[in-house]
């Protein structure tokens, strides 16, 4: 524990170098503890070459994954489309409701204005105002109503003729 601590806090060399040196020291100490009997140890480095190993093709698994991916994509799309439409509909509903309120308010304003118009055009009020302004009722025969049907024998007071086409 103390040796580990020492190795850890020792500065100057890299950690791996310090560990390798430390291991060598420990190995040496262990050998001495075995009453001086040094067991020969042999280290046989093994070089493993796994480059020949390749993943065996699994078409079934691949197909399953493709199908699964497609299904997930479709499901996701459907969910997104549904969600989009759902929230879009909610948003449209709010907007429609807002427009309805505006429409109702405009209709009510229209009614108020029609009421005001009816109150302002009531015959009694018009008559009173006209008299205050000095107007009087027309005498019999004072009003001339243009006749609806035209009289062909009557002299023309005005006439409009289409312009002659320009000579080419």
């Amino acid at each position, binding site marked *: 524990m103390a040796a580990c601590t020492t190795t850890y806090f020792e500065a100057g060399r890299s950690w791996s170098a310090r560990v390798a040196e430390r291991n060598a020291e420990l190995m040496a100490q262990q050998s001495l503890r075995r009453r001086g009997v040094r067991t020969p140890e042999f280290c046989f480095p093994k070089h493993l070459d796994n480059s020949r190993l390749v993943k065996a093709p699994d078409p079934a698994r691949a197909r399953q994954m493709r199908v699964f991916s497609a299904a997930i994509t479709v499901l996701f799309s459907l969910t997104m489309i549904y969600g989009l439409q759902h929230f879009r509909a909610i948003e449209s509903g709010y907007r429609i409701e807002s427009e309805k309120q505006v429409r109702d308010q405009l209709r009510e304003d229209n009614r108020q204005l029609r009421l005001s118009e009816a109150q302002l055009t*009531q*015959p009694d009020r018009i008559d009173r105002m006209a008299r*205050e302004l000095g107007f*009087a009722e027309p005498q019999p025969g004072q009003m001339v109503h243009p006749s609806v049907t035209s009289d062909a024998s009557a002299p023309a007071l005005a006439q409009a003729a289409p312009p002659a086409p320009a000579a080419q």
Partner: protein
Amino acid sequence: MQSPVRPSQNRNTMSRAMPLKLARFWLICSFFLVWAILIAFRLFWLQVVRHSEFLERAERQQQRTFEVAPRRGVLYDRNLHELAMTVQVDSIFAVPTEIDDKQATAHALAAVVHTDPNDNQTTEEQIAARLEAGHSFAWVARRVPEDISSRVKDLIKTRPLKGIYFQKEFQRFYPDNEIAAQVLGYVGVDDNGLGGLEQKFEPQLHGVPGRMYTAMDARRHVLGSSEREPQPGQNLMLTIDENIQFMAERALDHAILRTQAANGTVVVQDVHTGQILALAIRPTFNPNLFRRATPELLRNHAVSDVYEPGSVFKLVTYSAALQQRVSSPDDMIDCQGGKITLAGRIIHDNQGEHYGVISLHKALEVSSDVAAVKLALQVGQDRFYQYIRDFGFGARSGAELPGETRGLLRPVNKWGPSSIGSIAIGQEVGVTPIQLVSMVSTIANGGVYLAPHVLMPGQVDGAAKNQQPVAPLVPSPFKPGSELSNPLPAGSHRVLSTLTAAQMRKMMEGVVLYGTGKEAQLNGYSSGGKTGTAQKIDPATHLYSKTMHIASFAGIAPVNNPVIAVAVVLDSPKGQYYGATVSAPVFAEVAQQVLEYLAVPHDIDLRQPRALSKAELQVAEDDASEHTGDINALYAAANELPSDDPLRAPTNQPVATNQPQPTAAKPQNESQPTATVTLDDGKTLRVPSLVGMPMRKVIEQAAAAGLEVQITGSGTVREQAPAPGTMVAPGTKIVVRCGR
């Protein structure tokens, strides 16, 4: 070292432990299984079997239903001018739990909302009481005007006031105020029709309330809601023309002012369709201020009151005689010096009239009672009664107005020996003004009785009152027609032949030109009619009164191609009380204005307005003789009325009683004859109203006003120029035309 396990002991223990453990296992399993089955069964029982029951209980607990008031339908005149419409106005309510000082709040609010002294709902004490009594809601004021609403909003901001909120409610408005008030009626606080067309067509006008269903939890949080939109009421278009209605009401105002009559009625009808163009009644009320109306003001005298028509009824007698060919207009008839005896009763002509052998048309012009009695006797009472019924008397006309009476007409088998004579001269029979105008319309249109209508046809089906009309309303301005519609409307029937009707029109014209109806002459238009003066029954003595009369006139214009029929009835005029002098001028004023307004071509030469000489204006009086009819016949006829007839009400008399004159009748310029003159910046003077005043008072008023006056004619003032209310310079000369 452990002893070796004895297989035999171990085997025996294991062979007993296996079955015991298995049994216990299955026992526990079965217990849980049974328990699960019970739970499942209970679930099934609650969720499936008793599903509807619990659903219903949940709805009852959770659902609240709020009624949404529908918008009331609009009443239009025939030109689609609004006569009655509903708009939203603010109503003020309070949440008492949010108000700290209720007394101070009530005081502040009452200072703003309590504007009408007659309204005892918005006093400070009432508001405070409601705030104290309520917990979460209390009305402060309902349906307040826009200015009061604004002031309350300002008050809330400036004070500030807590717990005061606004809510929109529907308010019924009548933009023309008193115009056609009795026809339209009014609505109460709860938007229910009370009187007139508002009451008659309440199901159509009211609409269908909407429902808002909300689900609430135990803490009254809204879980969800669903709505059913309210269906607005049906809009209705009347046959009334707003302008013609105004003309009729103004003419009636002049007459009431002139004669101080207790009440008056003017009905204007289209002779070719039976549609009522105007129905004016005085005194009247303002439907916008219905709280100030008395029951008497609400009464529609045109359909609910009957009166003995007097000489006007001679038109029926003469029509029957001509139709039956018992006489012709040029035949001579012996008036026996103005006296005839019938079943022991003596019937006189008018006082001072002792006609001998005269022509029939002359007899109508001078309103000879003797001639009428003789004609009725020649027709025979059965046929005469049939003609009376054919003209629409004795039955409800079917006009779309509530409270219509069928009038007083006894069946012929209950006539007395002299009843035929009395009825021939318009006694022992009670008619309404609307029946009267329909009668003259029948003569005017060539002899076809057309039922009067106030509502445009095709709007309300009697069988399906809740159906909405398919087509939107379009204006239907009154255009003078010359022919009856083909096919004839329902309820129509021919009463007279075309020739008889033409003869009657000619004779009616003679009444206006040469007889008692001179005051009904028009300028530029021919006119015809008949005057009538009848004594009223004194409610105190139950006898005919010598001081209370009904003055009436029924006429048509123009004569050769009539456009309108007008009936004028004035109840208890003071001073002059004859139909010739009191009602005929009203007809002239109304008919002249209406025909000019309708641009009806003049059929006679125009004459310059001039002061008519006293001799020309001397009109013959009619029905000035003592009433000789059987008064008990009227009471007997009243007792035979159906129970729903308004005349059966205990307070009603067969003839309208003489009520004190309410203050609703006012002249057109709203200034009383004794109005003081206000000086406007010292340079102009306001012309006072002199219409209806005698000459001496005219001179006094003009002098007091600092104006000069030029008088033409004699009697009371009929016209003046400049008009009342006009601002003129001091010393301006006012020209007045007087007449009797």
